[in-house]
């Protein structure tokens, strides 16, 4: 397979997750992948919980991902033919919440994403911390690793890397949809550095998907009314954080 064929395979998968611990360029890899995917598929919508800026593209609609209501099936229909970027997704899909109403929006991903042709590109550190159903749904896992090591001191390594313009990583792709076939894509992420904010902290999503709100209303009617206000504050907070992060991108 040449690089384009490999990338085409990645683009064709609905759920692609970047994994690995700090400093592996997971978020940067997501930024690069979405850039290439937009270019290749000509999609014009991105919904993301981390700010991304692609000055090279016009007609591109980037929407912040701030609440779980955005996963309701009727809401997903508004995002047809889009790419969703979900950085540090274990924050919202923590494995220990698997049996609670909080995670009940996940089945919508398995239904809505394919029907509405939405591609999910996410990242997380350890797969065991991820909600089980989400883990089973993922179609491809990519672990980025630097090709060259400049220094064992991470800070020093980063400085040399920037001066050498070398953020070349090897994406170790495991295609779970195709019998765990494994292939590698080598890419220099340096040109994508200015398209995302490395210091941005994605806040957890406000939990207000319809099933959760219905359950809350049934069980704690008085609290559910108060919860609506709490949620709207949380949504505002998330949006402010997101827009602040976007402004920090040069």
């Amino acid at each position, binding site marked *: 397979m040449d690089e384009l064929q490999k990338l085409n395979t990645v683009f064709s998968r609905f759920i692609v997750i970047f994994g690995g611990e700090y400093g592996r360029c997971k978020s940067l890899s997501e930024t*690069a992948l979405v850039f290439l995917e937009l270019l290749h598929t000509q999609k014009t919508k991105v919904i993301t919980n981390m700010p991304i800026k692609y000055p090279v593209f016009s007609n591109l609609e980037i929407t912040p991902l701030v609440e779980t209501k955005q996963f309701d099936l009727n809401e997903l229909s508004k995002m047809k033919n889009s790419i969703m970027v979900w950085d540090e997704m274990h924050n919202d899909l923590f494995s220990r919440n698997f049996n609670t109403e909080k995670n009940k929006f996940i089945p919508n991903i398995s239904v809505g994403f394919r029907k509405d042709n939405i591609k999910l590109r996410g990242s997380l550190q350890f797969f065991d911390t991820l909600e089980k159903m989400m883990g089973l749904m993922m179609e491809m896992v990519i672990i980025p690793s630097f090709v060259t090591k400049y220094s064992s001191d991470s800070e020093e390594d980063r400085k040399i890397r920037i001066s050498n313009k070398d953020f070349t990583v090897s994406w170790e792709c495991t295609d779970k949809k195709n019998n765990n076939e494994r292939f590698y894509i080598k890419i220099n992420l340096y040109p994508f550095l200015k398209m995302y904010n490395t210091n941005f902290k994605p806040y957890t999503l406000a939990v207000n998907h319809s099933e959760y709100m219905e359950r809350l209303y049934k069980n704690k009617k008085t609290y559910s009314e108060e919860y609506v206000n709490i949620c709207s504050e949380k949504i505002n907070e998330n949006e402010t954080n997101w827009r602040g992060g976007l402004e920090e991108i040069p």
Partner: protein
Amino acid sequence: MAKKEPSQNEPVQQLGITDESSLKNILSEAFSGADSTGGKDDSYKELETAKLIIATFLNPAYINSTSNLSAEEIDDISDAYYMNLIFDDELIDKKITSFIELKRSETKEPKNLLSFLSEIAGKGIDANRMNQNNGLISRFIGNRTR
């Protein structure tokens, strides 16, 4: 006649490019070293190993010789060869060569070249080996996705 609904794969509006030369620069920089080094997939490794072994055996000096290498030994030689691409120690290369030569001198159940080559060709990619999650992958994937 009913109006044709747009297909799911057809974007409603076209993605525009604001600066074509910047785009070209980004892409050329991103894939500048894609073919030189970096990860090689398992099928590539297997193929390179097979080519190396075939090239050694097709050397006229050895063409009529026999081999007593077992499947495990061939695997070991293959592993040693690829590890030595990293460690780059001449002694290991010599050790591999002399081991192959020593094996040729054994006469118990000798294999001819043709059967040896057919074994390599038939071996292909070991699907079980590829499915084993080892090292980095298993550390991050854990049990969640199996």
